């Protein structure tokens, strides 16, 4: 298992090269939703996102769960691969999507969009980049970290108005919410789904993963559990 530190400079390189190099030229490593553990993000070719979308996803994931501070970041843990793979294998195919649709229903009525998550990302990224270009004169991935965070916040709070841009079926906050929730899921899910590379997120927070046998521990109150995580595939970290 790789123990190398995912340094800020390597991360910057990844985001930069992803922006510059046409991804079709990078050899594909794995595209199916199996054998997704421990892939190299730099070598990975997305199966759902286009090259242009992928640049946005990498740059935004890097701010949603950044590298700085305690614990690994989204890029170090392959969160973008998780999202790409989930969208590819049909995330949201369990949603009831028959009309009629009432998209201005109260929030307490829950999800009332006509869009599956795949469309949410496609439309969301396109409009976000359009707005970013208009406001900052450059695409999201070229903003400074501070500006990126501010822009993501403007999506989260609907300061970016998708309706004004002609999109009546999706709010910026809904796109942001889907993206954030998928990012957290990818960060914390079992590595077999493509994220949480080497169980680094579990190591950081102290979750032992799929050990799932604690008869000896039930009576050990307020004692730190000493063992690291195992994955469903039987790997340890």
């Amino acid at each position, binding site marked *: 298992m790789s123990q190398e530190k995912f340094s800020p400079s390597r991360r910057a390189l990844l985001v930069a090269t992803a922006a510059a190099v046409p991804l079709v030229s990078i050899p594909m490593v794995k595209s199916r939703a199996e054998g997704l553990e421990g892939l190299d993000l730099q070598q990975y070719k997305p199966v759902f996102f286009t090259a242009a979308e992928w640049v946005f996803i990498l740059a935004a994931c890097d*701010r*949603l*769960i*950044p590298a*700085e*501070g*305690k*614990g690994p*970041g989204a890029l170090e843990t392959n969160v973008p691969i998780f999202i790409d793979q989930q969208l590819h294998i049909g995330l949201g*195919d*369990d*949603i*009831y*999507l*028959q009309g*009629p649709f*009432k998209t201005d*229903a*109260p*929030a*307490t*009525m*829950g*999800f*009332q*969009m006509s869009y599956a998550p795949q469309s949410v990302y496609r439309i969301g990224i396109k409009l976000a980049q359009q707005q970013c270009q208009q406001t900052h004169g450059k695409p999201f991935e070229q903003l400074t970290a501070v500006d990126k*965070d501010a822009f993501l916040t403007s999506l989260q709070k609907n300061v970016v108005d998708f309706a004004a841009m002609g999109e009546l079926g999706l709010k910026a906050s809904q796109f942001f919410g889907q993206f*954030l929730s998928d*990012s*957290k*899921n990818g960060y*914390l*899910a*079992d590595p*077999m*789904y493509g994220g949480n590379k080497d169980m680094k*997120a*579990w190591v*950081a*927070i*102290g*979750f032992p*993963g*799929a*050990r*799932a*046998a*604690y*008869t000896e*521990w*039930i*009576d*050990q*109150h*307020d*004692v*730190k*559990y000493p063992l690291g995580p195992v994955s*469903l595939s*039987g790997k340890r970290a």
Partner: protein
Amino acid sequence: MQTITNDEVDVVIVGLGWAGSIMAIELAKEGLKVRALERGPDRPPEDFAYPKPADQYGYATRNKVFAKPRDAALTVRYNTQETALPTRKWGAFAPGTGVGGSGLHWTGVLIRPTPTDLKLKTYADHAYKRGSLDPDMRIKDFPFTWDEIEPYYDFFDKVCGLSGNTGNLRGKTQPGGDPFEGPRSNPYPLPALHDTLNSSMFAETAKRMGYHPFPNPSANVSQPWTNPYGSQIAPCNYCGFCSKYPCLNYSKASPQTTILDVVKQMPNFDYRVNANVIRVDLHADKKTARGVTYIDEQKREVFQPAKIVILSSFQFANVRLMLLSGIGKPYDPITETGTIGRNYAFLSNGGATLFFKDKNFNPFVTAGATGEMFNDISPGNFDGASLGFIGGAKIHSSQSSGAPIGTSLPPGTPGWGKGWKEGMVDWYGRSMKISITTSCMSYRGHYLDLDPNYKDPWGVPLLRMTFDWRQNELKLQRYLRDIVLNISKELKPDAMSESFLALDSHWDITKYVSTHNVGGAIMGDSPKDSALNRYLQSWDVHNVFVPGGNAFPQNFQANPTATIGAITLYAADAIKKYYLKNPGPLVKV
């Protein structure tokens, strides 16, 4: 469409969850030819061998073994003036599907209501001043006495290997149990699960404050158990993947672990999966059913002739099938006539999350039902009348699963970015919850009917749910909030967050509460205002029996499964003792 006709059976069972499995074994043991039709797939225990279920994202986030809204959505609205909208994703509740139903992945809290809960109307008439409750409230008594139903609770406790402390043995209060429980004919089959840190902290404090905590009654068994059907269940290993997960250790009582392994070996029982029953077919006089029609895996329409029809799908699926089949008259909330759909009720939850920066709760070390609760705030045990509401709650500190997706973080922690990430590092495993699970009354305007606008993939109308919070339930929430916050403060957490309903809250379908939906085809003493008699027999079509949460006239604070088990066993007994000998209405009016 070409209709295939199967060979006739004595009993067809629609839905192979708890109620269907109980009916299957009880009636197959009687020698009847029994066939179960299950809408979802088969779910054999080998599918859930270690480590497969130890997958939070797959099972708890993506609801791997639940019904999909795409297939099983219903519509919801707050009142009759509104157009209902579909539950496009599950939120407040999430029904199961497939063999075992929700019983495969429930939490395993197996607790009885109190004798007062079962006779709530009688209690209300006695304890509340006339006119002091909401005039639209339509609570009712269950149509049997405690002594009549208790033996069936007792048997179901043994089916599940119920683990916990006895509180009242034949009228005598026992130390360590729930002093408010109804008299038991026998002690709990097995001792309680061990407490986690949060449960012991909660229980010690609650006890000091004068409450009467006891371990959550658990169907995750504490010791090896052989049940009355001969099924063996292994002791729980506190794996931490319980609520929403099939058990990886054969320790959670489920239809699979307690009944199906036995009944599947009987030659007079078989079952079909991916068989979606779309209606019960009635004879021309509409007094009896002749069988059911389902769509099979190859999308063919199949008629299954049967002498007895058991509707044992999930609560609202049962009600929908009755409405689709013309069994009984649909309820009309304006004229208050008709019986099918009335007395729909849900429940509310809420609570406080307490953060302790130096404590290790090890939340992954837990059984589903692990926790302590007290029942002091249930009807009859406190002065609800002076507070202006009826009902109550279990107040508990439980730990049903401890995997990290969805971890609560202290107030003020950012929702993303460095702050969220560091919050996870600092606070995962350092919080506990004190929670409420409440009763919910039934009301004139809360009901189920067929939706005029939305259909399922088979072209069949969705069920429509009309429901919202009433002042009675919201006042109860506010009262419980004070109690929970007082206990919480005693525990001196470093930080705390709370989630309780405000007095102007609407029902939020996005936040999970529990899949404890009840009513809609209720049991009662009169065909005027109930769909079923005390034996869960349709008043209108006497060879149709409808066991499930649909039979509850309102929701009590206890989890429903114990009562679903008990009333199903009670009905099965009546079919065996009375109906087979003399098919016809079992209760004359």
